[in-house]
């Protein structure tokens, strides 16, 4: 197997100038013997692997009763293993004779022989593709069901922990709450504001182009106002926070789990729900609405900038139309979603973190799951909100 990823300069030369390995069957005192020559080491045996393979798998057998090592060069455990396999395949029982002098052959064969197992046959999967597909669908269905039940259970535990914290505020851990607020909330202001500004501007541009065909360019103000306030600001903020902060929640808690810090907390009488989950839920609960407000303002400024600079709508007129035709109801319909999204995302991120096992793979898998689940749930819940608002004529 040639490794293509290693640059040629780093290609490993055999440590010692090696002579190519080879073998023959010779008669020594009328006994057929396997006579290897050249170097049989981990570096060289690959050269004769194709010649050896039929003998190793038992498809062909050497009629050798022992090994004549007098012409053998360097030998190591890998070489000794292969030599032994060759001879062992040819005689079902009994000890092979060793003939000739070699500094290490006897010692190495002694070392290797007890550890040489017959090559295990790989059991191929003979099921048809349809069965495999059904198998996978079934497994996935069961997994989704379990995942949903587990998530609901975790939501319940979080609510209990939150309720306890509200009843007895002394239980709250202020230091982690403020620390999470800073890293997950405050530090996200620039990215949320920048992206929302651009979204607002893009909506204004796209809207203006289409509305201009009806001579209704001025309705760009309503388009920007309603779409940013109702949907874009809160959804964009939630998605950014899911990617930026929710993944951090999972990674932090997961790394603590791998380091047994969670176990240490439990033994010290500290509840991980109080220490890790509640602070994160509270921090997002406070900061997602603030970030949404920032996103709304930035989005309106972005849309307004396009309106003023490109569509010849004066700033005063922009604000007037915003006030008269959009109204505060859209602000509240958008803002009302923020705390709901906050709780959903914090719970998903913390839960995935606590589910991390003892290996790095699960850390990566759960971080991915946290972000995917958070974005998925945010969009599903947003659709539910839209339907509820529709029924309420908001």
């Amino acid at each position, binding site marked *: 197997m040639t490794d293509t990823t290693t640059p040629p300069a780093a290609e490993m*030369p055999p440590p010692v100038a090696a002579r190519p390995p080879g073998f023959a069957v010779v008669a020594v005192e009328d006994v057929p013997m396997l006579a290897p020559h050249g170097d049989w080491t981990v570096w060289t*045996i690959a050269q004769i692997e194709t010649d050896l393979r039929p003998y190793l798998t038992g498809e062909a057998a050497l009629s050798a009763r022992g090994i004549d090592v007098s012409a053998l060069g360097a030998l190591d455990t890998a070489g000794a293993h292969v030599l032994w396999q060759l001879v062992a395949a040819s005689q079902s029982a009994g000890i092979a004779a060793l003939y000739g002098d070699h500094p290490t052959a006897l010692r190495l064969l002694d070392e290797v022989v007890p550890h040489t197992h017959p090559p295990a046959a790989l059991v191929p999967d003979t099921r048809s593709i349809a069965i495999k597909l059904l198998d996978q669908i079934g497994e996935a269905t069961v997994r989704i069901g379990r995942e949903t039940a587990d998530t609901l259970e975790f939501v319940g535990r979080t609510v209990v922990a939150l309720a306890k914290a509200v009843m007895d505020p002394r239980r709250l851990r202020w230091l982690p709450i403020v620390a999470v607020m800073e890293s997950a909330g405050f530090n996200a202001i620039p990215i949320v504001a920048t992206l929302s500004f651009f979204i607002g501007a893009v909506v204004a541009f796209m809207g203006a182009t289409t509305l201009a065909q009806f001579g209704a360019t001025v309705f760009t103000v309503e388009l920007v106002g309603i779409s940013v306030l109702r949907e874009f600001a809160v959804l964009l903020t939630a998605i950014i926070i899911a990617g930026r902060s929710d993944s951090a929640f999972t990674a932090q808690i997961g790394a603590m789990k791998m380091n047994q810090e969670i176990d240490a907390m439990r033994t010290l009488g500290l509840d991980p729900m109080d220490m890790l989950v509640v602070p994160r839920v509270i921090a997002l609960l406070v900061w997602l609405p603030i970030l949404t407000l920032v996103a709304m303002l930035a989005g309106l400024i972005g849309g307004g900038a396009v309106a003023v600079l490109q569509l010849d709508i004066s700033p005063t007129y922009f604000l007037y139309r915003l006030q008269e035709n959009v109204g505060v109801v859209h602000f509240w319909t958008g803002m009302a979603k923020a705390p709901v999204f906050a709780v959903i995302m914090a719970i998903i991120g913390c839960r995935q973190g606590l589910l991390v096992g003892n290996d790095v793979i699960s850390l990566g898998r759960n971080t991915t799951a946290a972000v995917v689940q958070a974005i998925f749930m945010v969009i599903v819940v947003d659709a539910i909100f839209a339907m509820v608002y529709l029924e309420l004529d908001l």
Partner: protein
Amino acid sequence: MISADAITATLPVDDGEVAIRLRGVANRFGDHTIHEGLDLDVLRGETVGVVGGSGTGKSVLLRAIIGLRAPSSGSVRVLGLDPWSADPREVATLRGRWGVMFQDGALFSALTVRENVMVPLKEQTDMGPCLLREIADLKISMAGLPASAGDLLPSELSGGMRKRAALARALALDPEILFLDEPTAGLDPITAGRFDALVNELKSTLGLTVYLITHDLDTLRDACDRIIVLADRRVTAAGPLDYVREHAEGWLADYFRGPRGRAALG
């Protein structure tokens, strides 16, 4: 021929007879000097146990020898080659001739034990998949693991099994030198004793040079030909256990004569 009971850190022998030769090695972290003018020779085929109190830089020295952290000054020669050479071929050759077992195993957690052992074989040799598997299983068995362990992930292994799996990976390319960082730390005495016996057996059959860092007095007694003591930024004592023990001073005296030392060494 210098016998393995030499009592000096440096030995008057040719490069060909030493496995590791350090001259004037210094390691500094900013203003903090860990080693200064450190000299050491390790003969081929001997097992040395490196001891020293916390912060004497046992791991830092190991990292300098195996090419992970460059020494601030001084020369390092392993098997006559320089692990800090500018020539990538020299370094690559060297990497195929030593095996390193880290303290917690440092197994690749995404791979099974067998795949872990196959990594160096796959990267450095041209073996086909069947032979790779066979050689990997041989090493796993030689390291004292049952054949069924090959399919397990590192997270499914106990501490002792993880160390054995790491040893199997370190042995994959039939190295000439084996570096072991605290091989028996965290193991129960019986498993630790078996590990010592395993290292001894491998050393005698494969003719390995073993450089091991340990705090375990049983390991020093059972597995090491010579003890190397790190203190005061250099090698302060070297020699067979009995010699080092008789001439122990300071930290070393406490180490050997404390209750644990007396219990282990009598």
